[in-house]
């Protein structure tokens, strides 16, 4: 018998979160934007918009386009650069009652290490996520997450700069995501965020113009959920560090798919654009789900997808 409320707490490296939900980078500001109508007492942490060494204006508009069961975005890492960020933004986070995780993007190993070190040095920042998988920048942003060696270099360099929890965010736009995950883990990552957006494009049949100013963008939302669940499942089979599963989570049932596939925590991005009450609802319903099944903590379902075919009739399969 479970006597106390089931625990939703999770540890990512040294970072302990009361709730296993992280608001996806770039989708939630610092949380302040959503605080008037979302209950931020019931989230694990907000992952901040990715920041770079130098300021960036980002991509031309349109930066967003709605697609079936999802959306494409190409923000292009608009941000004020690490200097201004540390001086003017980060101090505000000291007063926030929720945890914020910094997110670092860059164009060289040195960029990453530099920004990571400066960001991680700040008390306001609970942990750092390395966005090595942003598909929306003209230069080589995503090649880091597409190349096992580059992934290892970036993670190793950043690891050397901080003891704080280091989450490495992987791209689905690769032939073998598990191989990249192993490199990241080997180079010192404490956790893996799986997945960033899937590369995509949309064209207006009337005007013949791409619907995004940047031509191509990243697909998010329920459309990509099956892709993300599989990525988590494949990474979980090889990695020993915790996974933050994300991509199209809108309901508790969706979140459970990720836990069962092997995620220790989940990310919620695009769903906040549908209804800002979703993260709170998922927190409450996850607790009910565990309670109804007499489970003491969320950890008890992580990776428990039963892939033993028990659901199908006895079957001989193929020989060919």
């Amino acid at each position, binding site marked *: 018998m479970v006597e106390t409320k089931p625990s939703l707490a999770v540890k990512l490296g040294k970072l302990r979160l009361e709730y296993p939900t992280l608001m996806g980078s770039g989708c939630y500001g610092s949380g302040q934007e959503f605080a008037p109508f979302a209950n931020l007492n019931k989230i694990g942490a907000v992952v901040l918009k990715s920041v770079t060494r130098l300021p960036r204006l980002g991509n031309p508009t349109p930066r*967003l386009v709605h697609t079936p069961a999802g959306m494409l975005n190409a923000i292009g890492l608009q941000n004020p650069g690490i200097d201004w960020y540390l001086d003017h*933004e980060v101090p505000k986070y000291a007063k926030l009652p929720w945890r914020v995780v910094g997110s670092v993007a860059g164009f060289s190993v040195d960029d990453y290490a530099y920004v990571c070190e400066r960001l991680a040095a700040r008390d306001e920042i609970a942990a750092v996520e390395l966005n090595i998988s942003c598909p929306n920048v003209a230069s080589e942003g995503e090649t880091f997450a597409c190349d096992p060696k580059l992934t290892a270099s970036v993670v190793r360099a950043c690891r050397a700069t901080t003891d704080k929890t280091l989450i490495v965010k992987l791209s689905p736009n690769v032939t073998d995501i598990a191989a990249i995950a192993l490199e990241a883990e080997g180079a010192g990552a404490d956790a893996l965020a799986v997945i960033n957006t899937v590369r995509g494009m949309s064209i207006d049949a009337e005007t013949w113009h791409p619907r995004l100013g940047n031509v191509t963008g990243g697909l998010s939302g329920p459309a990509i959920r099956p892709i993300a669940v599989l990525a988590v499942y494949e990474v979980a089979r090889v990695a020993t560090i915790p996974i933050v599963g994300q991509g199209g989570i809108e309901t508790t049932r969706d979140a459970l798919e990720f836990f069962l596939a092997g995620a220790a925590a989940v990310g919620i991005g695009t769903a906040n654009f549908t209804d800002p009450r979703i993260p709170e609802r998922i927190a409450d319903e996850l607790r009910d789900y565990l309670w109804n099944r007499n489970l003491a903590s969320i950890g008890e379902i992580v990776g428990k997808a039963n892939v033993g075919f028990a659901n199908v009739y006895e079957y001989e399969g193929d020989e060919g």
Partner: protein
Amino acid sequence: MTTLDLPVRVHATLVTDRRELAPGVVLLGLDAPDVVAATQPGQFVMAIPPSGEAAATALGVYEAEGKRASLLFFVTGNRTRELSELRVGERLDVVGPLGNGFDLSGKPSRVAIVAGGVGIASVLLPAQALVRAGARVQLLYGARTAALLVEAERFNEAGCALALATDDGTTGYHGYVTDLLERLPRVDLILACGPTPMLRAVARIAATLGVRAQLSLEETFACGVGGCWGCVVPIVRTSAQAPRFPPANAGGSDFVNARICKEGPVFWSHELRW
């Protein structure tokens, strides 16, 4: 927690009335006293899809009186279609009001309001407020064709003078509504809402006439609350509306990218870097 700008929340409203003003143009009345109480002219709400299966939709608050707020929209895709299928008595949750509306603090005495198509949805509240404050308000209202010039009489009732224009000449002036603006006797202030090409023309004409203009801009939104930086427009760095979390000024450029949903949707036309 830091102090918050606005007492906005998610409001559960009920559909009180529904009219199809023209094919594909719907007016939804909502029982929404909290929205009415909080709304400033030119603000918008994010309407949460009843199915839970798409992003919320940005819609201007058309009317706001007593307990009833209303939304006026064109059915252009999945999301507006879903909203158009709501029936009286059904529930619609909205986030808001959001954004910065029209600045009517200058006590203008003669105002021209330029509305193009669905832009009409964002200008009834400022028109009413201006008339109440004693201003003479001229509405210049254009659409593709006569049938789409919905709700013109509503502005008459509100005390505005009207000039209509249609692209096909089926009613009023045959041509662009901005042509009418060029010929207008002098006004103190111009307000405009409509398609981007119309707004650009208004900005150009306002500059020529030497009249200040406020434009309500549109862009595809995701969050609607300033969290995703998906809806930007470049404005001059010195604008009071330049975002507090400033976009980069890489290369020392003279402009910054402001969020239409947060710093706008209404901007002074002379501060836009168009």
